[in-house]
């Protein structure tokens, strides 16, 4: 079911938690709400779930305004960051709880519970208590419990943040697979860009209570709306300066060739993703700049060079084994493909 969040404003005392946040998720789509802590993503989630109210703005689900409905009448499945499994109930009772509240008959409840637990691959653990489960299992019980009510919308709050790094990778793939299979419209709140990219069809990047950009992982990574989005979505070398036609003149005095700007803005910076950079023996016209090697670190699959640019910026470049490794202190040239040097708007605040 289509979710539309329009111009949410929410003030807590003097603090403006939401300042006109908007986003949407098409039916069956997985959208990640990505941003640093305090950006308003959790408040947005809580307003959609009904636990907070907005001062103004709309929450529409399937074309129907749900902003005034109490949480228990919204048919929204919610997976909490701490899972919030009922400790005094078994796994089966946890999953059946929403069905019980809906007056579903016992036999049908048992059937649904069995089916949903199979979906999340937890069959056989029906009689366990939450305390007897691993973190990953608890998370899947929470997911099963939310899915059991056949929600119109599924909300996941930092779904993988409570799990250790090794498990996270496995569960990420599995979660994506389950979510795609059940086909419920899903909104995921996360501060982890890697998680957002792995799980979501589209990513809404939030900052200071506003949505800066809503787009596919590729769009937000390759064509970020602002410097903040560019830097939040991954490493980048950010050069400050001025856009001058097809060239970008940096404050450090380089005149570099660049791709055309895809957004109009008052001020631009030049974004260079690390994978677009390489060491060059000689530079052509505006396709690189000099740097000094600060340090060399062995990183297994490659050598990691830390380079100083004009004494103001530092950038890391991976050099594959076999290529010559310059000594620290050496002057080198960093080159790039001008088509991958993107003028990106600076943030306006």
């Amino acid at each position, binding site marked *: 079911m289509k979710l539309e969040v329009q111009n949410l404003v929410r003030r807590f005392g003097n603090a403006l938690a939401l300042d006109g946040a908007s986003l949407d998720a098409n039916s069956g789509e997985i959208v990640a709400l990505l941003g640093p802590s305090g950006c308003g993503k959790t408040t947005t989630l809580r307003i959609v779930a009904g636990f907070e109210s907005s001062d103004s703005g709309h929450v529409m689900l399937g074309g129907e305004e749900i902003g005034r409905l109490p949480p228990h009448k919204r048919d929204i499945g919610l997976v909490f960051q*701490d899972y919030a499994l009922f400790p005094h109930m078994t796994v089966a009772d946890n999953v059946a*709880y929403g069905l019980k509240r*809906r007056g579903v008959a016992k036999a049908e409840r048992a059937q649904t519970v069995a089916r949903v637990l199979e979906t999340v691959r937890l069959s056989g653990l029906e009689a366990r208590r939450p305390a007897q489960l691993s973190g990953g299992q608890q998370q899947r019980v929470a997911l099963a419990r939310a899915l059991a009510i056949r929600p119109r919308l599924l909300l996941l709050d930092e779904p993988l943040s409570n799990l250790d790094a090794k498990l996270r990778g496995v569960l990420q793939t599995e979660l994506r697979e389950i979510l795609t299979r059940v086909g419920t419209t899903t909104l995921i709140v996360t501060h982890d860009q890697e998680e957002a990219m792995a799980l979501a069809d589209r990513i809404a990047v939030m900052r200071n209570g506003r949505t800066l950009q809503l787009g596919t992982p590729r769009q937000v990574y390759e064509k970020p709306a602002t410097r903040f989005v560019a830097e939040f979505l991954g490493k980048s070398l950010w050069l400050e300066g001025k856009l001058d036609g097809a060239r970008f003149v940096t404050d450090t005095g380089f005149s570099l060739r660049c791709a055309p700007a895809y957004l109009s803005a008052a001020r631009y910076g030049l974004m260079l993703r690390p994978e677009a950079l390489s060491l060059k023996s000689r530079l052509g016209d505006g396709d690189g700049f000099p740097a000094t090697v600060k340090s060399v670190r062995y990183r297994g699959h490659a050598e990691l060079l830390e380079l100083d640019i004009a004494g103001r910026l530092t950038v890391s470049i991976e050099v594959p084994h076999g290529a010559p490794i310059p000594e620290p202190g050496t002057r080198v040239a960093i080159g790039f493909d001008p088509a991958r040097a993107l003028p990106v708007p600076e943030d306006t605040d």
Partner: protein
Amino acid sequence: MKPLDLPLRIVALAVVATTVAFLLAPLLVACLLSFDNRSFLGPFPPKDFSLRWYRSFLDNPAYLDGFWMSVHVAVIAGAISTAIGTATALALADPRLPGRDAIEAVFLSPKFVPTVVIGFSLLVFTAFIGIYDPFVRLVMGHTIITIPFTIRAVSASLVALKRSHIEAAMSLGASEPRALWDVAVPAARSGIVAGGAIAFVLSFDEVAVSLFLSDAFTQTLPIALVAEMRANLNLTIAAVSTVFLAATLALLFVLDRTLGIERLAGDVGARG
């Protein structure tokens, strides 16, 4: 930790032994005296034992009526106190409740107001609003003085309850009261039971408030004891005290087995 030096250990042991002796000796003396066959308060220890004071206790309507009155008051006041205490603790557990600290302070205040003051105030107040029934007055008084303890007991058991549990139930289709009933009340179960037991015990041996609120015909057991002690001092009081003590110990034993004594001691110990 390094073991203490021998002389220090002896001193420490002596202090502990003396303290235990002072705590338990009076109780033991009262117990022994309750079986004394003499009709007067004679030198200790008694030489001849009988159950005559227990018979006297059972024969004396003042004690028996007092006992049943105490049970009635304690059960009703304990139940009301547990209900109010549970509801209050649940409300206080919600971080969104405005003026939480102030509300908590008001509900816990009976703990810090001298019970004599509560007794007198309640006597004047109930007369003012037209409640003259001493039973109702006693239930009111005992409810008020036990509420801080039931709140504390339930609050302690709600520490592990997270707001997200309530919200999870609500997102699954439970109204907020329903969510509290399904999720918070089971979580608080041990605290509710402990709070009820504490309220019962406190009400059962309450003296100061009851002194003001009871009358000649409506007396709790402790009040009957005090009255009887003044009128004619004999060893029936020792027998009653022993029964009292045994009943309390039995209750504590059951609670320890079901809930653990530490939580009860923590709550009762914080009294006054």
